[in-house]
């Protein structure tokens, strides 16, 4: 199944390698991965979609949390979250189809970012499955070329949206009472 993981990581050389390395070492398959800085330039947010056996989901999160550069790893698969994917698409279409294409694009909320005698370039953002549908529809109109960004996800639970480090800066590991770890 597809698991959506949101990671808050220190923006340090090697952070990305550690995360992808950990996933490949444990034979989890990466479906998509995006990274960008957060408001705090020392931290980055990653959204990773991995293909993993359901019973291994919590193990993936725990392994991620063990990485020294990872401040927080969260499983967003089942929790309230918004997940978006962007597609840039070129479509080559005969003149006769163009109005229909524009109509479909409008229904989906896609934007035309370039147009030429050959056809259009479109930009579409949406829920990953919605985007799949849109791409399928467009395929019916001519030759297309698609580049997708991979998913970015944001949790809608405030406590899961931690933008600052979970432990006070300056080292030290305050003993805290952890919640009982769930068993499989």
């Amino acid at each position, binding site marked *: 199944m597809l698991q959506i993981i949101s990671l808050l990581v220190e923006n340090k050389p090697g952070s990305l390698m550690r995360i992808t390395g950990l996933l490949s070492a444990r034979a989890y398959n990466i479906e998509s991965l995006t990274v960008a800085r957060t408001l705090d330039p020392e931290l980055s947010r990653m959204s990773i979609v991995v293909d993993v056996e359901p019973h291994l989901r919590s*193990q993936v999160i725990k392994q991620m949390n063990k990485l020294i550069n990872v401040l927080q790893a969260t499983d967003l698969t089942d929790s309230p979250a918004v997940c978006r994917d962007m597609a840039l698409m070129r479509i080559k279409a005969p003149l006769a189809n163009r109005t229909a294409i524009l109509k479909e694009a409008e229904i989906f909320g896609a934007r035309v970012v370039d147009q030429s005698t050959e056809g259009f370039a479109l930009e579409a953002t949406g829920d990953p499955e919605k985007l799949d549908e849109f791409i399928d529809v467009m395929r019916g109109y001519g030759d297309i070329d698609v580049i997708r960004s991979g998913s970015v996800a944001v949790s809608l639970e405030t406590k899961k949206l931690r933008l600052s480090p979970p432990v006070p800066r300056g080292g030290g590991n305050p003993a805290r009472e952890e919640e009982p*770890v769930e068993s499989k």
Partner: protein
Amino acid sequence: MMSGARILLECLLRENVDCIFGYPGGVTLPLYDAMYDHAIRHVLVRHEQNACFAAEGYARSTGKVGVCCATSGPGATNLVTGLVDAMMDSIPVVALTGQVSTKLIGSDAFQEADTFGITRSCTKHNFLVKTIADLPQAIHEAFYIASSGRPGPVLVDIPKDVFQAQAHYSPVSSIHLPGYKVIVEGHAGQIRRAAQMMWDAERPLVYAGGGIVAADASAELRELVETLDTPAVTTLMGLGILPSAHPNFISMPGMHGSYAANMAMTQCDLLIALGTRFDDRVTGRLSAFAPKAKVIHVDIDPAEIGKNRAADLPIVGDVKKVLAKLNRNLKELAAEAGSKNESSRQSWGRQVREWKQEHPLTPEISQEEIKPQHLMREIDRLSGGRAIVASDVGQHQMWAAQFIRFDEPRLWLNSGGLGSMGFGLPAAIGAQFARPDKLVFAIVGDGGFQMSIPELATIVNHSLPVKIIIMNNGYLGMVRQWQELFYNNRLSAVELSSFPDVTKLAGAYGFKGRTVERPSELSSALEEAVREPGPYLLNVRVTPFENVYPMVPAGAAIHEMVLGPPQPVTA
């Protein structure tokens, strides 16, 4: 102003490092120059792999961080096996490697290797230090990470120009690791519930591992075992955490574990797992492992909990602290009321003692040939539960684990998780440096010994009185055993011919060595080795075709263990 090399050494002093195992090279020249007139002792090994194993031996026998050092490229890649070994067994090691100068990184420079990338998966964490300003921070963070939480190896890769650069050295006062979380105190409510479960169980069993060694929690473990009066097994990594003669101790479980241990695992109704990780060599076929048991699992690493076996009651925390609280809770329960399961507890105890008597681990002894088990029994006699025994990997390792008793932790040193041949001798070197007053045995096979021969020079160089005992069966015995049992005895590439004459070999290095073949000579030869003030190389020719039993075949449940060689059918 100080050079980066000098700053590094100052940082090591602040971490109380007294000894580094290493091997120099081009990019570490500035470091070795700084060492020339510095208090820190450097031990020149003869292969970098052994620098890491020796650092592990140092760490395993003391609990302190072991330090090893290698040059860039081939030096760093030679460390890899040792790093993985330390990772698998959670041993605190800091590895320092030289790197080509920062300006050359990425240019395929001479002796450049991507050490940072290569060692990502074999370390708990690693650093590439790009400027001298970052050096002290990285070194102290490395020691902190290596030794805290679940210990492990940390590598610091340092380019040559960072060693050479000059800077003011101001000691680091705090470390900054916002993403490093260690949960030390166990959850109080969970601990109370665990104590109650233990109190209520009819057939509880303690299953304790290397985490008890790492946490220095043997006293607390013993108290728990005695308060509950429950049988206890310790894993290969945990031998010594309970005194071998403790009445509740029923030895090691798993592939070559005792009958009593494996039966108790299978029949218990509560498995109390402490600092242990349900390794496949312990559990056998997982689906048939401890099928009747509820599981309490205490570990400092949350990722171990539920990884192989679901825990009914998980506790994340330092096992020493958790055990101390558990013991307090149990005492309170005991004060309130006696166990309501008094009679089932007693019959469980009786049952376990019966298993222990039914199939005890008894050494084979013959008058004609030296049996491997006999050798281990003799070493055990001389050790008296007190010597350090560093073992290599193979049949001899399993017999040593079965027949040599350890009355304290940190005496039994072996490569448990990785099972890396070539570990034993260099680990003994590291241990002897760390604990110069201890009698140290290196028990090695004739195969593994030949991976370590170069280190004889290190031993002689430093007059280390290590007693090297080769259990020489003429074969890569453990592989031969599997070929015999599971591949129709088609012995393929396991015969070790052309073993050197050890008297000459030791003589060539300038110390004493001897071969024994007859059972009657064995005890006196071992005594002679121990009496010798310096190192000693004793080659013991044992029966070649002995197999290690009990044995749980691959894929079987642990109670399906084979207790001995097939008996001739009497019709």
